[in-house]
């Protein structure tokens, strides 16, 4: 249940039986492949999700950095991000467990859309909690969830963002736990979630490890992945953890600054691994952005998907052990990396993903001769944010957007 001192099951008593039931199901179906669960999961990941996904040699970046750079293309997964690996696994597991309904929360909407897709695919009723503010900010993702037949319940408490949505989903689950499975979207939450989500996402590193050896005859010197909650991170790292010569970099959102403002409870970053303190949140002991009293701080990042005050307990443990390097890059660097990958490689990354490339830009000479970067998702969802944030800044690599402004001026509004 724990990873060193991290992890555990800090949840209200009413959820504990469900957690125990899930633990049992996880052990039987996921670990022991009972009733061929894992076979069906892998078949659906292939047929519905499009796996295996390529490990692409990035020609321009390799030349730029004089380092062989390979991209693990999770952006090509159905739905546009690694999120489906987990959502499909959990919705399928819920079916095996005889559950009749799925709930999930979503902030940026990526986990919500993946869950809605998986639920539609497996014919499972699905309700997604989402903060009212996020509903406004992530309209296309809300639309996709509705189109897939999910219920969307707006959460109006607090600031109307991810943390309120998580609380609201916990409340739903506490009420409906006997018939409902809560699809947690990252390697967070009470055991067995962190381990289970990691196992569903580990297909990333399982494929990448095989592919890199096939293409280059060796293991990489470094693997880079962005880290918010940490599911793409653990997915990209898991099968390399035992390869001691492979350096693993979890790249967090440095936001606008690593300093925090205790007074207002605001951390202008989401760098829980780099700057957080041990604490208990959403069911697990892990590293958190919290004030000196233990109240959780409001995190910030240009990338909504990294904007979370906690991080997966296993990742916190691996950082403490020295197996994973916790690093971070700021908003500016992520935006520049977004533009660079788009222009030089023809791959528009999610803003989350762009953080990993920002670190590559800044530290490529420390990463060895062969680097894998996990392209955790595509950036279509981030276009409006990027437009807005790019215009605020003076970036070297940003394209000239006057065509769009002219068109918008003459009446366009998507």
């Amino acid at each position, binding site marked *: 249940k724990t990873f060193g001192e991290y992890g555990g099951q800090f949840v209200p008593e009413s959820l504990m039986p469900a957690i125990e039931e899930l633990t049992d199901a996880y052990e039987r179906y996921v670990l022991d492949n009972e009733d061929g669960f894992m076979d069906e999961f892998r078949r659906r990941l292939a047929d519905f999700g499009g796996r295996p996904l390529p490990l692409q040699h990035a020609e321009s970046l390799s030349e730029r950095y004089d380092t062989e750079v390979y991209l693990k293309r999770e952006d090509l997964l159905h739905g546009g991000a690694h999120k489906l690996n987990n959502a499909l696994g959990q919705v399928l597991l819920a079916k095996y467990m005889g559950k009749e309904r799925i709930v999930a929360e979503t902030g940026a909407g990526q986990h919500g859309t993946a869950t809605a897709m998986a639920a539609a695919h497996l014919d499972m009723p699905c309700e997604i909690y989402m903060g009212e503010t996020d509903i406004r900010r992530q309209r296309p993702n809300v639309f996709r969830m509705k189109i897939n037949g999910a219920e969307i319940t707006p959460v109006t*408490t607090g600031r109307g963002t991810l943390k309120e949505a998580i609380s609201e989903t916990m409340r739903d689950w506490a009420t409906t736990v006997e018939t409902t499975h809560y699809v947690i979207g990252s390697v967070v939450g009470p055991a067995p979630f962190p381990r289970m989500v990691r196992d569903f996402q580990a297909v990333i590193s399982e494929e990448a490890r095989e592919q890199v050896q096939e293409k280059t005859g060796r293991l990489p010197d470094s693997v880079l992945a962005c880290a918010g909650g940490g599911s793409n991170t653990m997915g990209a790292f898991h099968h390399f953890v035992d390869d001691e010569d492979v350096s693993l970099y979890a790249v967090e959102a440095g936001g606008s600054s690593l300093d925090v403002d205790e007074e207002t409870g605001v951390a202008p970053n989401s760098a829980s691994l780099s700057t957080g303190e041990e604490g208990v949140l959403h069911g697990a002991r892990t590293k958190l952005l919290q004030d*000196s009293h233990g109240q959780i701080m409001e995190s910030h990042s240009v990338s909504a998907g990294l904007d979370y005050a906690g991080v997966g307990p296993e990742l916190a443990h691996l950082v403490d052990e020295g197996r994973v390097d916790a690093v971070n890059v700021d908003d500016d660097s992520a935006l520049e990396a977004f533009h660079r990958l788009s222009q030089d490689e023809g791959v528009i990354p999610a803003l989350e993903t762009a953080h990993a490339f920002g670190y590559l830009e800044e530290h490529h000479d420390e990463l060895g001769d062969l680097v894998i970067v996990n392209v955790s998702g595509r950036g279509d969802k981030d276009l409006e944010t990027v437009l807005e944030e790019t215009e605020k800044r003076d970036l070297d690599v940003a394209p000239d957007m006057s065509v769009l402004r002219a068109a918008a001026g003459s009446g366009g509004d998507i």
Partner: protein
Amino acid sequence: MGLERVFADEPAFVPYVAAGDPTYEESLEYVEALERGGADVIELGLPFSEPIAEGSTIQEAVVRSLEGGMTPERYFEFVEDLDVEVPLVCMTYYNLIAQYTHPETGETGPRAFARRADEVGIEGFVVVDLPAEEAGPLRAACDEFDQDLVFIIAPTTKGERLERMQENVSGYVYVQARLGVTGARDDVSDQTEESLARVDDWDVPKAVGFGIKTGEHAERIVSAGADGIIVGSALVDIVADGADPDVDQPFAETAQRLEAKARELKEGALAGAERAAAEHPD
């Protein structure tokens, strides 16, 4: 002996309010009004920024209190400033306990928290997100400082888990009347009797909470066999009215309504005990 004592003679009324809601000063008065209304133990909430097990009523109380500057240290001062005789239980979430630093010893964590609580006279804890399995360090600290650790048992709590909790519980057991989160309801769950049956052989008093709103609810719950009733949201609703600029309810009236509601609930509980005695004479 600990909190068991207050359930000994008659059914106990256990109200919950969040400390510092809506302000430090008003909240002191409100807690005292509850005592005047007949409270036997008061569960005093130490607000946490992520109250995942609360319904909207208590969630908003937590926000009001935090915005008023409530911190764990200030909470302990609040307890010291309180002029009440009844025992106090601190209800909170585990992270505030795990992070706590004792202002004098510099010690951190559950033992530091329990020590400081003991210094201000708190007799027990309800930690919403701390199941028995994770409670070891706090349980040890409670033993050291002679405090009670109250567990909540849910309608879903069964089998081995029930046994594990029975071993760890002290003071009283908080019997959750129905699934879900805190919040006042117009009906009281039928699950109550079934839930009470599951802890029938426990040697601690059984206090039932979740959804109790009226004296009539209280009567039914106690007549069903409860040793006490826990009421939060129905009281916090009154505090919320007082804090709401759209509701014309002066401070004094809020305190009076709280006292009256407390009395209604306590009397309902007493009536329930009489009814139980009449129906099942020993």
